[in-house]
């Protein structure tokens, strides 16, 4: 069962530009997490935002959460070629038994 859906599916930008990825979900959540995955590698946790939080920052990353719209966004500022990866949102929902469900991801390409 799919909970989070990322948009866009693919994004190509130049180094130094900002990248924004969106995630929409269907049911109420406890928290929403963003992960990065480089090709052929494991998933790296970026940020966890709880349902009672609206914004969190970590270095060049900014995550917002709008529970009324059931959506979240991940902003990467001043992107670098090393940010090239797939980005996934994952939701932890109480009424789904606390399952951690991933979306299909956004593939980000940052060109030098």
């Amino acid at each position, binding site marked *: 069962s799919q909970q989070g859906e990322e948009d866009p599916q693919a994004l190509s930008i130049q180094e130094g530009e900002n990248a924004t990825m969106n995630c929409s979900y269907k049911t109420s959540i406890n928290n929403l997490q963003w992960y990065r995955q480089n090709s052929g590698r*494991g*998933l790296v946790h970026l940020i966890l935002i709880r349902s009672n939080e609206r914004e969190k920052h970590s270095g060049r990353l900014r995550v917002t959460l709008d529970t009324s719209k059931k959506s979240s966004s991940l902003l990467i500022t001043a992107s670098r070629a090393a940010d090239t990866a797939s980005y996934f949102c994952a939701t932890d929902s109480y009424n789904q038994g*606390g*399952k951690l469900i991933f979306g299909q991801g956004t593939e980000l390409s940052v060109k030098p």
Partner: protein
Amino acid sequence: EAGVAQSPRYKIIEKRQSVAFWCNPISGHATLYWYQQILGQGPKLLIQFQNNGVVDDSQLPKDRFSAERLKGVDSTLKIQPAKLEDSAVYLCASSLVGGRAFFGQGTRLTVV
């Protein structure tokens, strides 16, 4: 701290053979997840344990897949018999209840 350990890293088997994957989570993490990730897609939750009880296994093809978590620590995921469409990366992750998930490097399975 030590991360989530998975073995083997790679496995090639013929269809109809059986295969087993092993996962050792981070010490103290009550929640353990097994995901299947097919190339180009997001991770699909197969089974989620809390301690040695199953939170959800609704996406686990129970006619061929089985998983156990003995003593609430290590876990094994077995496929018997394997099909071509089982070719994927199998990811194990662990977390504190409601916390961020830490992922292992995964096992890349190729069924020929």
